[in-house]
Structures are given as C-alpha cells and as structure tokens.
C-alpha cells in the first residue's frame, strides 16, 4: 500500500555455538542400562488375582556418557517416565541392570543396591519434573524449597544455606531478593527454575529431566532450554532428557532414543537419527511433526492406527500393525536390538534394507521468521 516508516530489522544476531561435543565428553560411561524391564501387575476382582502385566518397560538398554544429553522420546504411555523412575530407583525394576559410576569411580548397580547404600547415591542423581505448578510445595518459601536438600544432607547452618541458595538462584537467573517468597508469586518459567535450582543444590552428576519444558509457552521454553544448555556446559552435567516434542529433543540432545510400547525402537546420534532414520516408527514420527512453515504443508501422511496396548502387545514386532513396511516375518518374530552401524541401534527386521525419509536438517536453515 503506501509508505511505511521503518520496516524493522528481522535478522537475528549470530549466536555463539555451544561447546562442541568432544570437549564436553570425558569418554567415561556414567550410566549403563542393561535389559531393563518393569512390569506392573494387573489385579482383578475381590481376591486381587493377577490377571496380567503392563509391560511398561520391556527390555531397554542404553548408555550415557559423562557430559552428554541423551533424549528419550516417544508417545504417551510408551514408558519414558517409568524408565526414568527405575533409574532413580523411585520404583524397583522387575529385572535388568542399572550401572552407575559414582563420584569415587566405583560402579554400582542401582537396580539391586540396598536402600542404605542408595542414600548417598541419591545426591548424585537428581530429577526435574514437568509440572512447575504441582511439584513445588505451596507452603514453603523458595529458600526452604531450594535449601531442603541441603538441610537433609547435613548443611545445618542456616547462614550457610542462605548463602548457597543465593548462589543457586543466581545460577538459574532468579533474583536472590525473592528467596522469602512463596511459589505462587512466580510465573511458570520461574517456578521451573526453582525446580532446577533445587535439583542442582547437591552438585549432582546425572540430571533426569522428565518433560521439563512441556508445560511452558514457547518464549519461556526457549529461555529454559538455553539455561539447561548453559548449566550443562558450565557444570559438566549429564542429562537424561525425557520429552515428546521432537523440536525440543532435536535442539537439546546429543543422542536420541525413540521408545515405542516399552521398547527402544531406535537409538542414534542426533543428526543421524533425524537425517536418516532406520526404524519405520522413527520415520513416521518425524513425518508427523507439524513444521512451522506453511510452505511445507501437506507433506505428511498420518500414521494409521493407535499405539499398542502395553498390557497386550502385538506378536512379533510391536509396531507391525501400523507399519507400512511389515512383512510376514514381522508378525511372528520379535526383532532383535542390533547395532547396524557404529552407535546406531535399531530394533527392526528390515532396518538394513530400508531407506527411509528423514528431515532435511542443516546448520544453515534459519528459523522461518528470518
């Protein structure tokens, strides 16, 4: 139409790259999960007879190196939270090993260790929760919330706790002046930071974050993701990052494990997984994500059917009823967990022969707004 005064600049200033992977990693395996299973018993009736099992985690194996981020993705009910809770031993696994390398360099099996031996380990593994609203006690001040793990672990001096909480609040970019306020006085993103500060209070090695940004708006989500990346680089943290949003996962992870009905379908380095997925489920998942660009519209074909029931999983490959590539063998034989190229693990009979579409990712593709 007619003259416009100033079209605002739309270019984004170049962002400093995060520390490259090799610098962050020490090469040490921090966590080694082997053949993990967690079956929940289904009871029925007056006598509470066992009538079946929910195979929430059904033969899961993966390793996490010190300093890296492994993302666990998958649809609702696929067993992400159950896997995390087993690792933190919030629940007892049905079988399998969870080998954790402690600060002193010893390797312990978290799956079978006694409660007494577990105590000192808890400090080294911490959890960040999804819901910044319900995971904080509304009757406690921020000082008490962040300071509680310190108190429990022997920091008896109040002065010392205040100093430490102040430092932690600064670390997560909260104003220390607000330490005597209650959670309701903070926004969702700020509450999530309180949860992060609390998790970091005891210098953990492993941080398990279960959907830490899922409840947040995009702008707050971006701030929180930046903070988590920065904390990892400065404190050398190792993350197990649980999420269902593939954009978030792509952004934060080094390696990605895709779960389907209690099993890991595929595990690979981030770029390999997004660019050339080997499991039909991963490819379908990538194709389902709505891309924030109307010009890419109509390229997706919805995956038919519904997620299988973990109490009565299909025969053979759990994915076969929905898989476009299923052959007779898929219906009868359970595919093995195989490494098909260095670091690329897949559970699919046809992984070696199929070429599946991935996502064109490039470090030069800038966000749509530019």
């Amino acid at each position, binding site marked *: 139409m007619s003259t*416009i*005064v100033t079209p605002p600049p739309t270019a984004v200033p170049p962002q400093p790259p995060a520390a490259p992977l090799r610098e962050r990693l020490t090469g040490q395996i921090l966590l080694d999960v082997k053949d993990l299973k967690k079956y929940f018993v289904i009871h029925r009736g007056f006598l509470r007879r066992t009538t079946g099992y929910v195979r929430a985690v059904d033969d899961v194996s993966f390793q996490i190196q010190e300093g890296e981020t492994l993302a666990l993705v998958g649809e609702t009910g696929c067993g992400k939270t159950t896997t995390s809770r087993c690792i933190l031993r919030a629940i007892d696994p049905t079988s399998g090993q969870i080998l954790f390398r402690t600060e002193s360099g010893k390797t312990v099996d978290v799956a079978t260790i006694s409660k007494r031996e577990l105590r000192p380990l808890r400090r080294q593994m911490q959890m960040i929760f999804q819901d910044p609203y319900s995971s904080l006690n509304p009757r406690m001040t921020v000082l008490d919330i962040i300071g509680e793990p310190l108190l429990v672990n022997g920091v008896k001096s109040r002065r010392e706790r205040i100093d430490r909480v102040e430092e932690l609040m600064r670390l997560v970019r909260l104003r220390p002046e607000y330490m005597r306020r209650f959670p309701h006085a903070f926004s969702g993103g*700020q509450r999530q930071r309180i949860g992060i500060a609390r998790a970091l209070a005891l210098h953990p090695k492993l941080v398990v974050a279960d959907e830490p940004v899922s409840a947040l708006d995009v702008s707050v989500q*971006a701030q929180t*993701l930046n903070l988590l990346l*920065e904390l990892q680089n400065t404190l050398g943290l190792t993350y197990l990052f649980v999420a269902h949003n593939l954009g978030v996962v792509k952004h934060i992870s080094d390696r990605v494990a895709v779960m389907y009905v209690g099993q890991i379908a595929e595990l690979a380095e981030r770029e390999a997984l997004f660019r050339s997925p080997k499991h039909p489920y991963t490819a379908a998942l990538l194709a389902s994500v709505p891309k924030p660009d109307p*010009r890419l519209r109509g390229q997706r074909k919805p995956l038919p059917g519904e997620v299988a029931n973990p109490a009565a999983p299909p025969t053979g490959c759990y994915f076969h009823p929905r898989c476009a590539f299923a052959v007779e063998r898929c219906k009868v034989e359970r595919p093995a967990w195989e490494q098909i190229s260095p670091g690329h693990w897949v559970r699919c009979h046809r992984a070696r022969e199929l070429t599946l579409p991935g996502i064109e990712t490039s470090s030069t593709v800038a966000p749509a707004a530019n």
Partner: protein
Amino acid sequence: MALLSVRDLRTYFVADEGTTRAVDGATFDLYAGKTLGIVGETGCGKSVTARSILRIVERPGRIVSGEILLQRDGGYIDLAKLDPDGREIRRVRGGEIGLVFQEPMTSFSPVHTVGDQVIEAIQLHRRLDKARARARAIELFRMVGISRPEGRLDEYSWQLSGGLRQRAMIAMALAAEPRLLIADEPTTALDVTTQAQILELLRDLQRKTHMAIMLITHDLGVIAEMADDVVVMYLGRVVEHGPVDQIFHAPKHPYTQALLRSIPGIQHEARVKLPTISGSIPHPFARPAGCPFHPRCALVMACAAAPDGVCCDHHEPELITVEEGHSVSCHLYRKKGAAVPLALESAR
C-alpha cells in the same frame, strides 16, 4: 461476505483485586470454507474470545463492548446483544456453531455413554426419533474415522483412548452440521501421530462441508499446517492479522517475529542459544500503557526518539493495514505524517 465478524470485542473480568481485560479490542472475520488460526501465549485471551462468541463467558466476565455479527439469511445478528441464557443463542451454540475443547475428558459426562450424549446433541437440533438419531450418530462416528461405530456408541468416554475421545467430541460438535467450528486447542493433549490424524480429519471435513474453522492453539506448527489466515494475540489484543504465508515468511510485528524465532525446530541448528523474548508476560492487572508489548520489545521507540512524538510507551497503536489482508498494530508501521488520533493524544 464474512460468516462471522468480530468487531472491537472487549471482554473484561471485573473483581475487587482488579480488572482483567482478557479480550481488549479484538477484530477479525471468519469465512466459509476457510480456517482462521488464533495464536498467542498462555493467558492472551484466545479461549475467552471463543467463549465470548458462544456467550459462555464465566462470571465475573462480561462483554463490555463490541459486536459479534453472525451472518444469517442474508443479514446479520449480533450475538453480543443476545441474552446468554435465551433461546436464540442456544440455537447458535451447538447448532450453527460447533465447539471442540482441549480436554475432551471434561466435555463428556462419565455416567452416560458417549452414544447417548451424541444422540441427545442430535435431537436437540434436529427433529429425529431415537432410532434415526442413533443411525445419524453412527454415520457421524464413521465420518470422523471411529472404527466399529455401533459398538463405540455404547462405551463410556473413559473407556476411549485420547484420540478416539477427541474424535467423538468432534462428532458431537458436528451433530447439527454447524457452519462454523470453533476448535480450542483440539490436539494439544494428543501425541503427534494422533494430532496428525485429527488435523487431517478436520481438513477433510472442511473440504466436504465447507464449514469455517476457528482454530485456537499456541502451537505455531499446527497453525502453519492448517490456517489460511492467522490472528496473533498479545494481552487481549490482536497485534497482527494476515495470510498464513505472510505471517510466517514476512511477519511484521516484533512480537510475531520474536515468537517465531524462539521455536526450537527440527530443521534448525541444534544446541545453540535460542533467541528469546526478554522479560515475561505482564500480570493481567499490571498491563503496560501504550503498546502492551513495549516493555519487551527490542525496537521500542521512546518519546524523545520518536519522529513525530508518537511513542510506544504512551500511545496505543491501532491496527494498520500494511498490505491487502495483512494488518499490524505497531508504531513502526505508522504512515508518515499520520495524525495521532485524539483519543490517544488525550491519554498522554
């Protein structure tokens, strides 16, 4: 001709602690066969806008001004003027306008089967006996892609999976063949694969029935996939409105630009710092003067610096048309020499 025109709608919640201007001057049109996407972060007034159209705003919320013009028989009726409990609006609600909520769990009663509830919705708007209404319900269930529709009718909502429940909810919303479907976060609680199925379903239904869709979501990916036109809201105001391609490829408002940049996409470079919007959404009682976005805006113009004395922290910008069908509420786009409207001048 627009099917529904919302004109300068204002819906406020007045309480002793303060007034929340949940919707504060929203203007947009909906057209048959087209999808209008409404985006914005939590609390910006998306749901209250939808509830205002259907006249189901909870107390102490109230439409304080504006028009909601629904086209009917070649003319318009103003829904904002109707008695919210009257017969007329009930004909519109669930009749001419169907509604799909975010949480289908709360939309169905757990004590009746979904079939009974859909049949009731059908009979409310069409004179059909029980058997015919049931046949129609089966037809609707089939249309929304529910397999074994006869069996599903006799199940309870809590027996259905999230995806099936959402489909049943859509079937119920379609019971009276609405001309407009308002879908408030219809896929937010669902997995991506289920979301893709539901969005495909909505598109398909629109192709068949030519209904208008007002799609509310904060997921910009869903908007890019579905919308023809987009309204971006911030603190109860429409800050930008335009064709979907323009909004994504040539966004005008600094808020829209910042919002798009902050999405971690699967196509973008990993593990770099995401551009963020500074500050946080203000408390609804402490709404900034002038442009509501100015405290967070990277391009804010203070009075001293503003060329014609119009500044972001004092004067509230109006919606300015920058191109056919694309408007933006931001002083950066004020035409040279345009006079400051009197009402704004006096607010100084």
